[in-house]
């Protein structure tokens, strides 16, 4: 056995630069080496650390030698070590485990294992971050940040038995096209993925998925303690028809995915989905998992706009960084046009948000929105009428817009486009924390009142924007629902109806529905969509249970008799139990400093033999031993 560790790091040392504790740099020659900052400070004007010492002075900074720097990207390491690991790891003629140790830096090259490896259960690829991200997206740790458009997956795994631990992966691409790639694509078996953060800031729920197990994935797999953040259409997608899947999805946290876990075909093996948190997802678990699906689920869901019944907990929980309220959402202006384009009467203001409601005819058309200022538009899923001939409705939006005169245009395969354009101020300009989504359509012979599914807002200050359409002729006459303000309701000459309304909430709205009212030409051809947009608030990145959480944290202790929390596959129990969701805490480092004052000065002998008591007054925040 000749295990080999390939060190990956891609940043050179720089002169006269301020370095922080745990920063890594590359320097020295023959070979080039990796150093870790052990004392923060500004580097010298030239030179940098050399040699293999454990405390190397470099101006005000001090460094410790870590090892040889073999590769400068994860992809190069995977390409350079592509051997038969059962007989020839690192071209040594021996068998071994290949560990790829990713030091702290921003890696921008998409990575793939290729198919050149030969592996087995004892000789495999182990990709790991050298230092833990600490459970929160961490710009000081290894992160794979890619703006795709030229590959399929930031990490494309095509080798069995691959393990990935602690990697931060961030899909920057603004495209929602499925062809631009998934965050990670795994087409083989025996995968273990843990403590990773999969991030995508773009909202809109396009075709981009998070962690995908491809058609030929045969299981088993263990997926635990990961955090999925952002507008993934499906944070985990299970596509294969595994004969004996044995897939365990435990203790993950899903934030603002359209679907948390989706199985698009029938698995025939066991899939356990337990102890996960789903926060502001449209659905938590969906699909056709039919056999041994442990959807007695023991998951906790909050803010779902559909699902959330049955085997889910109703336990409340609080993240460490729950967004605060900021208030001051204002509707600035709006305009409507029964056409494919519409211009604002007044100039847009930089930093505001444009929301566009689109109504259309024809069967299942696809449309996109753009404007003359070049703002980037994201879209919520379209809602189609039960009778495809009568089209449907869809919401688009652009954040952090440019200033100036602006014309908004919709293009697509539909007909009879009617658009309502709105400008708002005070909405969050960053994702993925801006909306949840609910929709509905009439049924043949059913209700004639447009009414969404149930949804909740999660912060006090939110905008609920609603778009509705009835493309029959003559259509009904819509007016705003109770409590809503209809800005641009319109009845075209053709009798179609393309309506929008909004409600600016100043308190959390729980289990509400949005609706339009109608008074004539009542029909069942309606479609309605609603999006919830949050006000600008506190940056919201720590998706671990907060110290103030009293519901879900340690729930395994408070409910020991239910049998719901029977195991925790990461084996890293906290405070005698385990939590729901990802629970990979940053131990110690995040704790507040504890300072103290000695009230009485005594010796050990005073305590042991004199019976005296040492009194120390501690100040600072409570230290939670996670």
């Amino acid at each position, binding site marked *: 056995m000749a295990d080999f560790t*390939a*060190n*990956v*790091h*891609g*940043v*050179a040392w720089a002169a006269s630069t301020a370095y922080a504790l745990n920063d890594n740099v*590359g320097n020295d020659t023959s*070979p*080039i080496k990796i150093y870790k900052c052990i004392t923060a400070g500004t580097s010298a004007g030239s030179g940098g650390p050399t040699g293999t010492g454990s405390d190397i002075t470099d101006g005000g900074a001090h460094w410790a030698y870590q090892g*040889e*720097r*073999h*590769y*400068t*990207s994860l*992809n*190069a390491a*995977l*390409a*350079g070590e*592509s*051997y*038969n690991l059962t007989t020839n790891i690192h071209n040594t003629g021996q068998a071994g485990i290949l560990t790829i140790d990713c030091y702290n830096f921003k890696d921008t*090259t*998409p990575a*793939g294992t*290729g*198919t*050149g490896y*030969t592996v087995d259960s004892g000789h495999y690829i182990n990709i790991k971050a050298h230092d833990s991200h600490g459970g929160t997206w961490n710009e000081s740790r290894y992160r794979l940040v890619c703006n795709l458009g*030229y*590959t*399929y997956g930031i990490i494309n795994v*095509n080798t069995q038995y691959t393990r990935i631990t602690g990697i931060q992966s961030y899909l920057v691409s603004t495209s929602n096209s*499925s*062809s631009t790639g998934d965050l990670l*694509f795994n*087409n083989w078996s025996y995968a273990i993925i843990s403590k990773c953060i999969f991030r995508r800031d773009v909202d809109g729920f396009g*075709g981009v998925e998070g962690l*995908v197990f*491809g*058609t*030929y994935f045969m299981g088993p797999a263990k997926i635990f303690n990961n955090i999925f953040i952002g507008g993934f259409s499906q944070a985990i*997608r299970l*596509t294969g028809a595994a004969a004996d899947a044995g897939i365990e999805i435990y203790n993950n946290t899903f934030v603002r995915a359209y679907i948390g876990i989706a199985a*698009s075909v029938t698995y025939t093996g066991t899939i356990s989905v337990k102890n996960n948190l789903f926060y502001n997802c449209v659905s938590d678990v969906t699909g056709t998992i039919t056999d041994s699906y442990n959807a007695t689920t023991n998951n906790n869901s909050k803010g779902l706009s559909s699902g959330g019944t049955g085997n889910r907990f109703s336990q409340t929980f609080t993240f460490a960084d729950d967004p605060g309220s900021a208030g001051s959402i204002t509707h600035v202006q709006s305009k409507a046009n029964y056409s494919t384009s519409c211009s604002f009467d007044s100039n847009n203001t930089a930093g505001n948000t444009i929301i566009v409601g689109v109504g259309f005819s024809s069967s299942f058309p696809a449309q996109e929105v753009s404007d003359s200022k070049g703002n980037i538009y994201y879209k919520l899923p379209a809602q189609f009428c039960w009778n495809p001939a009568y089209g449907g409705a869809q919401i688009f939006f652009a954040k952090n817009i440019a200033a100036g005169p602006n014309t908004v245009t919709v293009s697509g395969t539909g007909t009879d486009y009617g658009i309502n354009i709105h400008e708002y101020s005070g909405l969050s300009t960053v994702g993925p924390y801006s909306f949840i989504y609910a929709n509905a359509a009439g049924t043949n012979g059913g209700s004639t009142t447009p009414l969404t599914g149930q949804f909740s807002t999660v912060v006090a200050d939110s905008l609920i924007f609603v778009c509705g359409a009835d493309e029959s002729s003559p259509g009904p006459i819509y007016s705003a629902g109770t409590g809503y303000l209809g800005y641009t309701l319109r009845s075209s000459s053709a009798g179609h109806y393309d309506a929008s309304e909004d409600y600016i909430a100043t308190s959390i709205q729980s289990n509400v529905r949005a609706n339009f009212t109608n008074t004539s030409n009542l029909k069942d051809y309606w479609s309605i969509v609603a999006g919830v947009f949050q006000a600008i608030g506190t940056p919201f990145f720590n998706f671990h249970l907060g110290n103030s959480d009293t519901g879900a944290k340690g729930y395994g202790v408070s409910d020991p008799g239910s049998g719901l929390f029977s195991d925790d596959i990461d084996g890293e129990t906290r405070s005698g139990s385990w939590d729901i969701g990802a629970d990979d805490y940053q131990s110690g480092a995040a704790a507040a400093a504890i300072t103290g004052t000695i009230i009485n000065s005594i010796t050990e002998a005073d305590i042991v033999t004199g019976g005296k008591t040492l009194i120390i007054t501690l100040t600072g925040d409570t230290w939670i031993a996670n």
Partner: protein
Amino acid sequence: MAEILIKLEPADNPSDLLAWGRCLPVAVFEDGHPWGSLERPPKFLVVRITDQTAAQAQQYLKVEYDTSDPPNPIAIRKWKFDIDDDTMSNPMKKAVGDAIADGTILEVTTGMINAYIKRTT
């Protein structure tokens, strides 16, 4: 200028399009990138493209997929740097034994295009 890291060692299964075979581009950076100790012969060759930026040269990492079946994308084409091809300039051929070779984008892409892997399915 851009620098492209190109695999020199052959794969065990060179016929497989997804294998890390000889002459495949692996990473692209601006010139002066602090390459790792193993990112050189015999594993890799760095080609410095004198008339393109790293952003422009990123295209050579592009893999073309058939996504007609989205859950099961099939890689159908990717760039390959044909070091042994007669169309390559002499400096490029000579560079196989060195760590870094210089070439213009015309020289590099001529070699690449001639070895562009064709659809395999």
